[in-house]
């Protein structure tokens, strides 16, 4: 029986764990890993409860309303695909938390690390079970953000910061592309949840905007799953502590893109675009990843490039379009999560116990670390596709799925063949080279790590064996439901470890043979790759640096151009825009005012307007500033006269007072300044300024004229006229409004005036030594 609130609790449980982690770590140090591992373990247990329902072919959905006005729910969808992912995320998550306790034992920020890794787990778990698009997107971005925090965990190193920013930039931009894609799909189909979308069948495929939606979705999936040429962030993410690399960058997060593709395969797959783009990019990623891996000497980087290659292989298989290929992708995904997680943890143990990860400086430590060695070999066997491991099943199915039907499939088979052989060599290079051969002096004396460290790899490597040996059982609960969900129709996976004579087996044998050859000649292959890459020189990783610098330079250029520190420029731009935003719509929409009749004014009224004009003109043409100030007074008094003549005596008095004060203060200050007599602007500047000012003035004037020509709403004025006497007991309506109806406003206004006064006082009183020096000539001129 599916209890919705339990699932909801489980979805939020890791976030609660993340909150508790720092406190637990304060009291228990690295032993906090044990109680904290209960969190993912509980989630894992909860998801195992779905196995019965899902393996019988059913889908579990549930959820709660979220934004009801937008018809968006907080809802989940649990079928074979999301269940497998959820089990991987929570199961490996449990092992990783334990491993991190051993790996980062004694680290000053261990609590923070636990917190981040649980946050990530919550995000990833939410991502794979999300049903509604919005929820999917939110969790998707949350994985990018937590990945940023984890890669940059060692933030004191520049390489970490760079890798973190790079990962965030690439996956974050991909996330935006995904959002656009999801919105487009919502728009096309009307479905805003995966479950409703999956019910629609081929509606999306047949839509005219299908290709645009596909490209946007691929933008999200390819960045997240590090497809060539956007693969470069993944190897750089190896700057993160090894538990992060093992968890995020091999087993879970980087598979989110593959998850998305698999999820959408039933509704977006089976088209020419899908079956061309995916194998093309996937195949290229497979080859590039495997070839670049050969060059590396750092254990983690070798594994990282094989992860890139594996992701390419998964994308290629998902896009291939045959049922067997999908089965192969499913098997490979599960097998990869187990062996790659284990190998990463092994690389971390080697680094932790010997002090180096350089494969050239390691050798013969197998005697000192037998358990780790055993786990490494088991995982490498699975990675190399040897029977009876899970990787073997996957490889058989890959070759069976691709086949030799035509030139295109033969090409893909060859790509898969080369990639698999290279990965075989790299897997065994990581698992054998450090442990076997002659003993090499390492920075630390190697010895077996604590149980916290080796538990994870041992369990995962052993699972790879169990999965294949009990293939009927594991197919029943994992492979068949997942493959059915990806294919969109019931599929039955039946491959077992018993070899069946045929072409796939032959190819497997050839792969192993080629892999062994490469393994033996790895050193010379590495040198050959290194010199080839040296010759090429440029790569997308360097391109990223160039792009970032270019963006910084461009923004500096734009900023310096538009924020050049010149007030004049800012004002010109602002006023120009003001004029345009008033005049253009007014003319475009035909809202120009009607020209009214010539005003019927009395002669003294004309005189006041004339005085105002003269005052303004005198300000403009004044020879020196003192004249300008006095002329300023003229226009101010003219305004006061206007108020007086047109029924506003209160305004008039205030205006008279304020203008007088302004002129007096301004004149006082001016006499203390030693200024050049007048304003010099070049003629061109003058013309430009006059034009802009005139357009602004004309625009505002026209706007005002238009305003006076619409019907006047006197409601509020009438209210005041009606009630000033009756309610507020005052006869001067203007005064009543100010001190009574809007009394609080007036109080605010008084505070403003007071604060201004205080500020002025402070400005005048504060005198620095420098100011007394420059003020000296001003005093002289006063005298």
């Amino acid at each position, binding site marked *: 029986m599916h209890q919705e609130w339990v699932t909801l609790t489980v979805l939020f449980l890791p976030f609660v764990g993340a909150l508790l982690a720092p406190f637990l770590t304060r009291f228990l140090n690295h032993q906090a890993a044990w109680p904290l591992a209960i969190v993912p373990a509980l989630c894992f247990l909860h998801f195992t409860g779905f196995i019965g329902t899902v393996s019988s072919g059913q889908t579990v959905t549930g959820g709660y309303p979220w934004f009801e006005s937008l018809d968006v729910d907080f809802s989940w969808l649990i079928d074979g695909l999301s269940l497998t992912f959820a089990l991987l995320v929570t199961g490996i998550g449990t092992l990783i938390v334990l491993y991190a306790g051993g790996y980062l034992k004694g680290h000053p920020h261990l609590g923070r690390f636990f917190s981040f890794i649980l946050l990530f787990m919550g995000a990833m778990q939410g991502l794979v079970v999300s049903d509604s698009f919005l929820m999917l997107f939110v969790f998707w971005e949350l994985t990018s953000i937590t990945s940023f925090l984890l890669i940059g965990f060692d933030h004191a190193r520049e390489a970490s910061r760079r890798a973190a920013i790079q990962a965030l930039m690439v996956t974050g931009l991909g996330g935006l592309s995904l959002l656009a894609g999801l919105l487009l799909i919502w728009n096309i189909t009307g479905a805003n949840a995966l479950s409703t979308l999956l019910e629609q069948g081929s509606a999306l495929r047949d839509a005219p905007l299908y290709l645009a939606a596909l490209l946007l979705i691929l933008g999200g999936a390819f960045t997240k799953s590090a497809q060539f040429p956007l693969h470069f962030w993944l190897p750089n993410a190896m700057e993160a502590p090894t538990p992060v690399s093992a968890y995020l960058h091999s087993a879970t997060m980087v598979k989110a893109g593959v998850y998305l593709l698999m999820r959408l395969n039933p509704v977006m797959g089976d088209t020419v675009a899908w079956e061309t783009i995916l194998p093309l990019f996937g195949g290229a990623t497979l080859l590039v990843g495997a070839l670049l891996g050969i060059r590396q000497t750092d254990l983690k980087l070798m594994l990282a490039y094989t992860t890139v290659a594996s992701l390419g292989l998964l994308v290629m298989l998902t896009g291939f379009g045959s049922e067997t290929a999908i089965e192969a992708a499913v098997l490979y995904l599960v097998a990869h999560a187990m062996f790659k997680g284990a190998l990463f943890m092994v690389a971390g143990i080697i680094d932790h116990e010997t002090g180096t990860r350089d494969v050239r400086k390691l050798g013969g430590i197998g005697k000192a670390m037998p358990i780790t060695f055993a786990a490494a070999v088991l995982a490498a066997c699975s990675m190399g596709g040897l029977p009876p491991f899970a990787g073997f099943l996957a490889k058989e199915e890959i070759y069976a799925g691709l086949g030799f039907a035509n030139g295109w499939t033969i090409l893909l088979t060859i790509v898969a063949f080369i990639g698999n052989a290279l990965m075989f060599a790299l897997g065994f290079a990581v698992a054998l080279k450090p442990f076997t051969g002659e003993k090499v002096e390492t920075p630390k004396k190697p010895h077996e790590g604590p149980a916290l460290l080796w538990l994870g790899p041992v369990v995962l490597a052993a699972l790879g064996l169990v999965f294949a040996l009990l293939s009927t059982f594991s197919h029943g609960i994992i492979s068949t439901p997942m493959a059915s969900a990806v294919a969109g129709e019931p599929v039955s996976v039946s491959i077992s470890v018993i070899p069946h004579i045929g072409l796939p087996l032959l190819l497997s044998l050839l792969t192993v043979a080629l892999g062994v050859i490469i393994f033996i000649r790895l050193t010379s292959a590495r040198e050959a790759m290194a010199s080839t890459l040296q010759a090429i020189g440029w790569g997308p990783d360097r391109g990223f640096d160039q792009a970032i*610098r270019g963006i910084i330079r461009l923004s500096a250029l734009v900023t310096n151009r538009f924020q050049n*520190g010149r007030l004049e420029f800012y004002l010109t731009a602002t006023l120009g825009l003001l004029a345009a935003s008033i005049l253009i719509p007014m003319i475009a929409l035909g809202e120009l005012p009607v020209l009214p009749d010539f005003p019927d004014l009395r002669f003294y009224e004309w005189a006041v307007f004339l005085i*105002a*004009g003269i005052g303004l003109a005198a300000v403009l043409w004044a020879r020196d500033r003192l004249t300008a100030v006095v002329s300023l007074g003229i226009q101010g008094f003219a305004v006061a006269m*206007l108020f007086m003549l047109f*029924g506003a005596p209160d305004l008039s008095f205030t205006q008279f007072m304020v203008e007088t004060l302004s002129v007096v203060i301004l004149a006082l200050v001016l006499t203390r300044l030693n200024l050049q007599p007048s304003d010099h602007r070049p003629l061109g500047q003058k013309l430009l300024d006059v034009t802009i000012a005139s357009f602004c003035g004309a625009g505002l004037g026209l706007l005002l004229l238009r305003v006076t020509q619409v019907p006047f709403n006197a409601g509020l004025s009438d209210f005041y006229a009606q009630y000033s006497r009756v309610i507020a007991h005052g006869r001067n309506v203007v005064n009543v409004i100010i001190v009574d109806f809007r009394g609080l406003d007036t109080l605010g206004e008084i505070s*403003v005036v007071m604060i201004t006064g205080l500020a002025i006082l402070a400005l005048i009183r504060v005198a620095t030594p420098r100011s007394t020096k420059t003020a000296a000539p001003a005093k002289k001129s006063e005298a």
Partner: protein
Amino acid sequence: MDLIFTLTVAVFFTVGFYLMLSRHNIRILIGIAIFGNAVNLTIFTAGRITRLAPPIIPIDADALAAGTANPLPQALILTAIVISFSFFAFLLVLAFRTYQELGTDDTDDMRVAEPKNEGLPPLGY
């Protein structure tokens, strides 16, 4: 009557903006003062102009008689005049202190906050 008021407002705005486009602090200040008057006149005009009596209730009445001026814009303008005066006074003192500190009233020479030829921001991570 609206026409002549609108024209006046337009001229006030134009002169105010023209002065504000100057590079000299004092000219800008004068421009702001004129701009303030322009805004007040705009509110006044938008509340409809009348040559009639001021909005005062006669001693023998309880409400404002029809045909008096609109009290609402007047109240608004009264507030605006006082606030713009405070603003003006504050700016004036700022300009004065700026002159004392920097020895200039030319805005182009005031580059303390935004120095000329600022280099590129850091290009690293």
